């Protein structure tokens, strides 16, 4: 853009200065709010990272029972881990029909899988809690055989065997255990894939990425707080949208008045040879410049305000887990929405400026 035109675009009047301040306050709210929310996420993350979360459990998707990890790929996973298959099923035993969860465990060491229990291919091992429930509801000792309904199939007269000799502290005591082979034999499509991988230590990130795994946070309080902060952060996107609309309206009002007040000046520019596009460019650029100036000022104010809130919170008796960091994403977002909203809102006034002479016949005095 030619230098004189640029100078016109960047020339602020009292009205445009006031608009820039208004944009700055709007951006201050956005940057300050996002800084505080991000700071809380930092604080929570800092605490969560220092608390041991126990064994690492990986699944595909966000629901273990709906997860389906290709079992053929497990031999390529380094280290020791346990592959878990789990499905809801129906159990008929002691003249009771119960909804149970059937689980099959397969231990992997250096890519080789072994199945420790139950021993027999059709055996069903009922854990102690499930046994207690059956005995309490039926009033008789657990029978030596039962029927299992799974994947739409009904297997009868399956041997019921003793509880598993050991159980991870992660698992409850009311599962029924079978061998993975039984699940695969019943339905290779549904019973073949593994629902979860349980490892003592986190898996190699490359393996996690290649199998499209996500880590299931088994220490729920940490996942709960992390998820809750993420909800707060996502809610602030709505605030960003509202602020974009506010900025758009501010710029539209300011530029409309500006074009109206400068009608004579626009006519002079046209008579000096400026094209309609150049005139429109002046006002479009002015809208963008004042939005950008407001965003820069607002970002600085937002950072100061966020630090002030965090500093004063303990004085007011509020516990404070907010650890502020440079709010780069918030600043980028504030600048982006300011410039985009201003550019869009400035389109109509700048077009009005471009056609002003032709439509209204305004001439310089």
């Amino acid at each position, binding site marked *: 853009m030619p*230098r004189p035109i640029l*100078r016109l675009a960047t*020339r602020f*009047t009292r*009205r445009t200065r006031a608009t820039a301040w*208004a944009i700055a*306050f*709007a951006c*201050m*709210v956005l940057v300050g*709010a996002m800084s*505080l929310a991000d*700071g*809380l996420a930092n*604080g*929570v993350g800092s605490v969560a990272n*220092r*608390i041991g*979360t*126990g064994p690492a459990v990986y699944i595909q998707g966000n*629901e*273990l*029972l709906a997860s389906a990890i290709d079992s053929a790929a497990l031999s390529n996973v380094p280290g020791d881990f346990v592959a878990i298959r*789990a499905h*809801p099923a129906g159990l008929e035993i002691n003249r009771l029909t119960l*909804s149970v969860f059937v689980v099959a465990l397969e231990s992997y060491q250096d890519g080789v899988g072994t199945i420790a229990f139950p021993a027999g291919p059709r055996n069903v091992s009922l854990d102690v809690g499930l046994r207690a*429930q059956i005995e309490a*509801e039926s009033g008789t000792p657990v029978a030596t055989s039962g029927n299992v309904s799974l994947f739409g199939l009904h297997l009868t007269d399956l041997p019921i065997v003793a509880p598993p000799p050991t159980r991870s*502290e992660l*698992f*409850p005591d009311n599962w029924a255990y079978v061998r993975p082979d039984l699940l695969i034999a019943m339905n290779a499509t549904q019973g073949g894939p593994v629902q*979860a991988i349980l490892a003592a230590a986190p898996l190699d990130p490359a393996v996690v990425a290649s199998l499209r795994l996500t880590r299931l*946070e*088994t*220490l*729920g*309080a*940490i*996942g*709960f*707080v*992390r*998820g809750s902060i993420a*909800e*707060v952060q996502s*809610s602030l996107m709505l*605030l960003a949208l509202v602020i974009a609309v506010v900025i758009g309206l501010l710029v539209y009002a300011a530029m409309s008045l500006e074009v109206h*007040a400068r009608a004579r*000046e626009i006519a002079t520019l046209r008579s*000096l040879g400026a094209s309609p596009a150049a005139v429109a460019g002046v006002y479009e650029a002015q809208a963008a410049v004042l939005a950008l100036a407001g965003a820069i000022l607002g970002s600085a104010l*937002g950072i100061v*305000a966020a630090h002030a*809130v*965090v500093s004063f919170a303990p004085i007011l008796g*509020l*516990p*404070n*887990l*907010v*650890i502020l960091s440079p709010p780069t994403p918030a600043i980028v977002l504030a600048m982006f929405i300011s410039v985009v909203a201003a550019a869009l809102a400035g389109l109509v006034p700048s077009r009005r400026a471009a056609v002003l002479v032709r439509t209204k016949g305004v001439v310089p005095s």
Partner: protein
Amino acid sequence: MPARILAGDAYLVTQGSGAYSINESLAENLTLHAGVEAVSPEILSLGTVRGEPFVVRAAEPGSFLAFEGGEWVQPAAVGNRTAYAGEGLVRRLGLAAGDDVTVVGSSVPRIAFVHIAGIYRTATPANDELLVDFPMGRFLSGLGATAFHSIRLRTSDPAALLSFLRGLGASVHVSGPNLPRADIASDPPTDERISNLILRSGIGGAPRDYLSTAVSEATTSVAVVAYGIAGLLGVLVAFGIHAAQARAFADRAPAVGVLRAIGAGNRWMRRRLFLESFPLALGAAVLGAGLGFLAENWLQPNASLVIFGHEVLVAFDFSTFALVVLAVVGTSMLSGLVLLRGTLATRPMESIRETPAVESLQSLEVVLRG
């Protein structure tokens, strides 16, 4: 955890600093106590379902619904190791009765599956929770075989309740409607800010039993963010009011000059400003706050705010409404006084003289020449 989730509108008994007392024995004793009308021992676990945060509450369904004033949407027979989902949770996570979901431990690592047997509805935050039986609650929370986290109860005689608990020697904190927290055989709760400071400045790992403190810190720290955002929005609104009034005041400056020229004093001018501005500010504040409330009602549940697994319910709170109105009216009055002071500092003759409302534009030729 916020008191409303823990206690609702009932009295709440929680563990004190002494020996563990919130157990089946205490619940039975409270049930038998003549002054107590209803008792609901409960266990709360924090977790995630399908990646979304939510609260699992272990309680007896009948007592729980009585305390929450809830009802069954899809009733189910009370069975072992089954769960009942609140309608809000069902809507948020796309669940249905008959679904099986994975739940995880709260402060101990755990994995369990539950079968959603029924759906309930309450008009309280409990509408976003999952209700399970006590064995499942204890498994998820790591509590002992007879322990609970808290006991909710209704009584018409809280003083008798306190003396009964003192007689039992239980180490508990008791709080509830119109009852300041009472610490029975217990020290006051520890100030978590101290442990927080230690953690923030410390190096190395933290023990897992710090988790409950950390969760409490995190939940209450949301207040810092919420108050901070409210403060920032307040500043924005205050400057908006001032800007609008400044614009309006600029047009009235000659009128102020005329009034002063014919003998109006400063006090009279201030009173006049108050009489003219106050009704408008009050009307605008009531209208704005009312429109905000109606808009939030209209947007729910599609644009509801979910914090810590609970949908923020829209309820008309007169004190909050009055506070917002008061703040807006106060800001408007203060802004008006500041603007009037500036106008009063100008001589009446200068106020009356017609001057451009905006500063004159710079000469185009000067700009073009650089």
